[in-house]
């Protein structure tokens, strides 16, 4: 399975254009494709000439598109947690919850998590309806943070689970020796402990996302023929290596934008490379998007997916 594609790169290199052209090429080759923009500053709808929302909208036969609304995902999860707390906690402990959750909206990490939740929803709920899902990602900093979250958070969750197991095992010992102890009245069984169950559930979701990024995705980095975008691509490559996420292809966009001599960096030269010319007039229709020339990249993707 390699039917999820992510396009990464520095802001302005053409991630939305190339992911749109790639999705359109696949759709016109007969695949049912969903393209999802994860960039908070959406412009996928502008490229496709349609106003998009959080749910798939049909652009043309076999091509649907959506733009993830991160504020919706942040609100959804905070509201679910708030409702659950109000139900579980006694009145006094749950007092002043609203101001706590208002602060949480702007807490560091919440936006990256919202991207993860959105990817999980697209992958699990919408993914089975399509042959391929293409993700147009936000600029590098946010993309690398959400790609690394499953690994980093997974480590935390693993440690917390081990600590919880230790607590439950000690509670069991107390309950065996002294059934009258107040500790014996608390939860002592892993299967009944809601905190342990929730940690297990979070761990499973994170490992599913880790697997999605590391084994089931076609990750492509886009560069322009300039030093800044290549330097950023090298940093992306280094970070992906650290996370165990393989890079599948390098796309050189806006080739011919300048007459200066340019050669691909040796560290990126070993990957399948696809070149795209600079279009001075810009993209204003889907036919012009097709003319970008992503057919070779789409064919490479399909051959690769077919071979796996």
């Amino acid at each position, binding site marked *: 399975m390699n039917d999820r594609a992510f396009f990464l790169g520095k802001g302005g290199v053409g991630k939305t254009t190339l992911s749109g052209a790639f999705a359109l090429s696949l759709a016109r080759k007969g695949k049912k494709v969903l393209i999802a923009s994860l960039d908070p500053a959406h412009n996928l709808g502008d490229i496709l000439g349609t106003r998009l929302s959080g749910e798939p909208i049909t652009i043309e036969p076999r091509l649907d598109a959506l733009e993830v609304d991160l504020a919706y995902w942040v609100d959804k*999860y*905070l509201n679910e*947690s708030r409702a*659950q*707390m109000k*139900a*579980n*906690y*006694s009145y006094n*402990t749950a007092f002043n919850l609203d101001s706590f959750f208002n602060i*949480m909206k702007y*807490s*560091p*990490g*919440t936006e*990256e*998590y919202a991207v993860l939740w959105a990817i999980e929803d697209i992958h699990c709920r919408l993914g089975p309806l399509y042959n391929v899902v293409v993700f147009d990602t936000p600029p590098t900093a946010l993309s690398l943070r959400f790609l690394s*979250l499953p690994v*980093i*958070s997974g480590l*935390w*969750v693993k*440690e*917390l689970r081990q*600590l*919880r197991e*230790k*607590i439950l095992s*000690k*509670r069991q*010992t*107390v309950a065996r*020796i*002294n059934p*009258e*102890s107040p*500790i014996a009245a*608390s939860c002592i069984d892993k299967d009944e402990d*809601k*905190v342990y169950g*929730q*940690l297990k559930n*979070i761990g499973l979701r994170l490992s599913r996302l880790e697997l999605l990024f590391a084994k089931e995705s076609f990750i492509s980095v886009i560069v322009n023929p300039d030093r800044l975008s290549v330097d950023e691509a090298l940093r992306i490559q280094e970070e992906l290596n650290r996370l165990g996420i393989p890079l599948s292809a390098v796309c050189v966009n806006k080739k011919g934008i300048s007459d200066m001599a340019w050669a691909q960096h040796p560290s990126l030269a070993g990957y399948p490379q696809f070149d795209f010319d600079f279009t001075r007039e810009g993209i204003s229709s889907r036919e012009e998007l097709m003319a970008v020339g992503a057919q070779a990249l789409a064919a490479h993707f399909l051959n690769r997916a077919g071979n796996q």
Partner: protein
Amino acid sequence: MSRSFGQLIKSAIKTALQVNRDNATDLLEFEVRELENIFSLLILGGFAGLPSPPSPIAVELLPYLEKELLVLIARADLAQDPIGVLAGMMEVG
């Protein structure tokens, strides 16, 4: 009379056994409370500047952590006198 005397003995033995059980698990119960406190600190410490998992994980766990939160608050009340708590535990003085 003899029946009530028997009951008294029974009740005395039961109390003695319970005191023994309480003594046997005192330290273990203290350890469990400390572990619960550490668990809560690990999850919620991010809000007070301690290294902790990303805060959205804390938000997902919070609905089930009322007991741990109460332990954390009670433990914070005793934090000014850790030696006193330990001495009390060990029945020193």
